[in-house]
């Protein structure tokens, strides 16, 4: 069937039906890696129902010209997509289709649909789709806006707007460990980050969930290092584990709260690092990411000085630095840190002196 004919056939169909029809064709095109342009057209016109580019169609006065999908149609689309992705088949194919549906340059509508799709998949524990989403996140980049947006929407769906954390969300590491790991990386990036001089702590429920995840699945943080199922020739993007972000949470948390969960989190993070197989080159922790802790700590010190409090007398600060020193020492000793460690150590030295930290710096500088 020619491209035009196919389009004509699809146009005769009603909205959800045309998606169902279009998806297999898209799959085949994408897998064959030819006529990518046609796939993009199909996705735009028959999946997301965006304005058709053909002047011919405008002349025919199509009903849905310019009109976006309404919320109910979005959910119709989501249901079709979930059904499609639940079908058995090779992971690589699913991942490719997912990546083509939601490329890195998302329109606001697509991004909204993506968020809802992922959220619905979490609620429905749709493992195949979640694993594709995990792959997508990694390919797009866990710290990049699209991923952040998805993570944000998941947090608000399952944490902010829920009365109690749903079972499905709690069991996410079991259902889709890779996705869960990437999600942690991204979410970790949302909080405890200096923005306009303000550090936002994560919601308590979120922290509890993450702590639970890590404590029950010791290698969850490393799950993102699993190889991706991608079609041949595709390049896998570099992996960022949640370790650095979560270490930041644990380190900076004493300045905000003394919830035991943070200690717990810290413990399990250290535990995770201990489990890292240090045979290959270190991949788990980027020294630059660890260095991000220094900035907020220095701000805090400055505030203490302004309030005429000796930083060495401040229990919270002491605890933070202690945790940081422990993490650094451990990371260096199990050799899971990469990047410019010397620079990190120099940076750490700029902090007010702390016995443990001084010892750690001294010990590692020799090497």
């Amino acid at each position: 069937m020619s491209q035009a004919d196919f389009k004509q056939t699809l146009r005769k169909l009603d909205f959800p039906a045309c998606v169902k029809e279009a998806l297999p064709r898209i799959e085949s095109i994408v897998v064959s890696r030819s006529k990518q342009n046609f796939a993009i057209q199909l996705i735009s016109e028959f999946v997301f129902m965006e304005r058709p580019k053909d002047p011919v169609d405008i002349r025919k006065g199509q009903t849905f010209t310019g009109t976006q999908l309404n919320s109910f149609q979005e959910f119709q689309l989501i249901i079709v997509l979930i059904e499609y992705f639940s079908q058995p088949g090779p992971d690589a194919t699913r991942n490719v289709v997912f990546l083509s549906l939601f490329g890195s340059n998302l329109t606001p509508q697509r991004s909204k649909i993506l968020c809802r799709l992922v959220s619905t998949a979490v609620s429905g524990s749709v493992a195949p789709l979640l694993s594709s989403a995990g792959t997508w996140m990694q390919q797009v980049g866990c710290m990049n806006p699209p991923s952040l947006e998805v993570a944000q929407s998941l947090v608000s769906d399952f944490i902010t707007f829920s009365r109690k954390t749903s079972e499905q969300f709690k069991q996410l590491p079991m259902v889709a460990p890779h996705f869960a790991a990437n999600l942690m990386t991204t979410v970790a990036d949302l909080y405890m980050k200096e923005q306009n001089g303000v550090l936002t702590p994560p919601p308590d429920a979120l922290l509890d969930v993450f702590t639970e995840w890590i404590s029950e699945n010791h290698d969850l943080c490393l799950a993102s290092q699993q190889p991706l199922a991608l079609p041949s020739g595709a390049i896998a993007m570099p992996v960022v584990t949640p370790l650095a972000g979560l270490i930041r949470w644990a380190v900076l948390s004493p300045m905000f709260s003394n919830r035991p969960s943070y200690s717990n989190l810290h413990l399990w993070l250290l535990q995770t690092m201990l489990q890292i197989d240090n045979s290959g080159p270190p991949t788990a922790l980027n020294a630059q990411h660890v260095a991000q802790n220094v900035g907020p700590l220095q701000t805090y010190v400055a505030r203490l000085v302004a309030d005429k409090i000796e930083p060495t007398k401040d229990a919270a600060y002491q605890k933070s630095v202690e945790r940081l020193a422990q993490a650094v020492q451990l990371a260096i000793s199990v050799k899971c840190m990469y990047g410019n460690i010397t620079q990190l150590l120099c940076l750490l030295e700029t902090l007010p002196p702390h016995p443990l930290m001084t010892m750690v710096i001294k010990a590692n500088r020799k090497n």
Partner: protein
Amino acid sequence: MLKQHVLLELKQFIQAVTNHNGNPKKLTNSTLLRSCFRLLEDLPAAREIILEYFSIVAEVAVQNYLANANVDYATGLPIRQGKQGAGPSSSNNAATQSTVIEDSNWSAVQEALENLVVKGPSAWGPVIASWSLDLVGKLSDRYTKRKMSIVAACNYWLNCGAMRGLLTLISLSFRKLTNSEKEACVETLLGAFQRYSLSFDWVVARLGGCFPLSIISQILQCSLKRFSDDYRCHFDSELGILDYLSFAHEQELKQALTELLKDGFNPKKSLDACIIPFLLVMATYADALLQNLVIVFLEMYNDDLRNTIIQKTPLWMSNKVFAEMQPSLNSLTLRLKSNGAHLLIAVSQMAEQYTWCQDFLEYTMQDLEQVVLNATVCPLMNDLATEDSKYLLWKNCLSANIFQQQTAVRLLLIVSTQHSHIYYQTISELLRKSYVTNPNGLGAVIRIIGGQSGVVEFPCIKPGLQMVLEDVLLQEQFKHTRLITSDQSEALNTFKNLNTLTKMQKKNSFQYMKQNLLSNVLNDCLPKILQILEVTLTKVILHMNKLAEANSREAIKAARNNKNVSGNEFGSNKKVKFGAADAEVEAMDVDNSDEDTKLIIGIPLHDSDDSEEEEKDVNRRILAHTIIDLLNTIDVGLKGTVIRTTEILKLSILSVKYFFLALTEKSSISRSAAVNRAYLLLSRQCVARKAARTACIRELVEGALFYYGYLFGQYDEPEVDQLEIPEHEMVLLQNQRHSLGPNANRTVLHAGVIGRGLRPDLQIKEQKVCPAEMQTLLLKALDACCTVADKQNSVEGYSMISLLLVEMVSTDVMYNGLPFPDEEFTKVTMERDLMIRRAFSTSPVLWALLGFIAAHRPALCFSSVLLRAMCATCLHQWRAKNVNKFQPFDPNDELMLCTQKLLQLLAMGQLLPPPLSNLHVIIKHFEPPEIALLLKECIWNYLKDHVPSPALFHVDNNELHWRNPHMSKIPPQYVDTLRNLMQKKLTKLGQHYYQMFIMPELNEAHVPQVGPVDLINAEL
């Protein structure tokens, strides 16, 4: 299993919703709702579509409501079936039983959402709030068919369960919001408002109550922004909301306005420059804003602010509208509901400095006058008529600032046209307050009394004057009940003011007023003035009497002591004791009666201090003088004015009282001034009315003889129990003594008690005389009463005095005729005659009065009985001296003086023709028996035969009554005794003899014709 379930449920739900084929009513079944609630719980991603679905439910509910509701669009209240057109009462009923049309599906939804808001995570709050807001906006926009007022819209929509539920949800969620979220919500609200401005205002107004301050200030800010872009834009909805909110949230509105004004006066941004013009424009459209703006402004207003305003004006003037603002400022002023007076006065305070204020005031006044002329009303007028404004204006009427005063006066005049009571009260207030507190007030009074020119039915000043007089009267009557701080009483102020005014008016120096208006009105108010005068005079006279009594008591006591010390022949212990007891009894009596009168009149009992009382007395006297002055100024009692008889009599009585009061003035200058006032008053009324004259004369004579006798040297006889019956004596015994007839030893006669000898004469031996000045003044007063201007010599008044004297002095009703009876007959009347004689000795002023009437012939004739009594008693006493052994003769003996005076009187009254008329000069040269003889033969017999009656007198060319001595030649039998006696003493009386007997005969010989000619002339 579980996960499948969620997705399946979602799928079914989506299918159901998307396949409704355009009929949303199919969607509202309970299974769908149930699955919906489950999804809300389990599938957080779907919350938006679920909310969307809820919107549909709400919309369906609203549609159902609209289909069933039968609503009156004017009020927004449902019209009840069967009672349509039953009038406003039915709508009241409907309001009380509000019939909210509920929808079961919606109720379930509402419950679920409320649950979420109240118990769920706080994140739901803003979501549900903004969703509900949007939904309410959309629904009311879509289903409002016609424009309703805010109140009507509220009533209309709140009867719909869904709408009410949504609003409940909104306010529930608002309550859970943090401050920043609230700000966001206000933004949302206003955003929705801007989108659906026509149909959304009721929501804003309704919800504004949740955070009134931010809503109000936001709306003001938004409007300000719009205004700065285009000053011609309309703010209907905004004003509606502000109006609605201002009912319940006046404080917040004021606060918002204060802040805005502060910014406006200290502009920092370019937008701030528009604030003042903007507020003024807004105020022209919304009353609520205007009133509050004024209140806020007046709170802020001070000198600094004024300077700021002056400084910043150019900034506002640069705004396009502000230049054309002034006329509308005036109309704004007219719409003020409160503080109007305050504002205008504030403007007038600086009018001296800034001409534009004068212009502004002038325009406003003219507008107000126009309102008055058109007989319409405006809010400012009502405001001016309130109590607060009234007091403010009164206060300003006394201001020294001419603009302030004139503004206040004009405002009062304007408001008086429609509220006459204010006019009256103002007159009253100003008259009472202005004289001493501030002379500026007098100008205000003049202007106020002048009235508002050009107004047809302007209230008359009469009620105002009546009011002030009534007030003053009350105050004078019940002075002790009020706390009077100022020394000067309001009564005095009032009368001084009235005096000044009437005097000015008389001089016609007073362009505002119709001439004589004030005095005519005051004449109409005479009864009240008289009442005040009465109260005042009564008090003064009471005080006067009290002093006199005290004096006389002292004198008696002193006399008694003297007597006891000097001669002990009477001075038994018993007597002294008795006297003391008597005095005590008397004192008690006085006290009691005093207290009673005090209670009646209203003088405070138990006066604290004598000096205080003295001071009050002085003040009252001043008041009395002022009132009399006023009465003179307004020519009270003038012929031709209409006065009721009671007032005539009262006026006479009071005038006389005042006269006596005037006599007691201490300094001679003030005394003569006061007396002259009294003369003026007396003569005016006596000339005009006979009744007044009668009353005046009677009062004067009565007063001189009885009430105020002490002024004329009257001797008060202490009342003594002459019988001296011992207390233990039994009544039986007393009766036995009486049964013996008139000669019993308990018979009291003039001279004493039978069996006890003569009356103990406590009288001070020194001769009582009437103080000459008092006497003269009294006689002048009588003369003032008797003189008739057009008739030169009217006997009437003098005759009346004469008759009155008879009435008052003679104790008997019988034998008071003119003729002298046989001398024998005097024995019958002797007791009475003695009483009369006694009256003359205790009240020496009687001599003066008789002398006065003697000078106005033939009035003395009517007092014949008095003359007779004197004559008879003297005759008998001279005879008695004859019987007894020889007594040393004292030329200053009381008897001799009395005889002399009597003879003098008779001569003066021409009752004795010459030569008998000279008898009084020579009488002292005769012996007592001779005197008795002369009195009997010459005087008594002559008078017996020539009855002293007016018939003896002729009226001459000058209308004078007189007796021609040539015509009434005295027959020799009456003169011969005298002639013989004189001839015996020719050495001593030769000169007189010549004068009395020889000279007349010589004259007669020389001019014999004069008499008849005269007689003929007289008869012609």
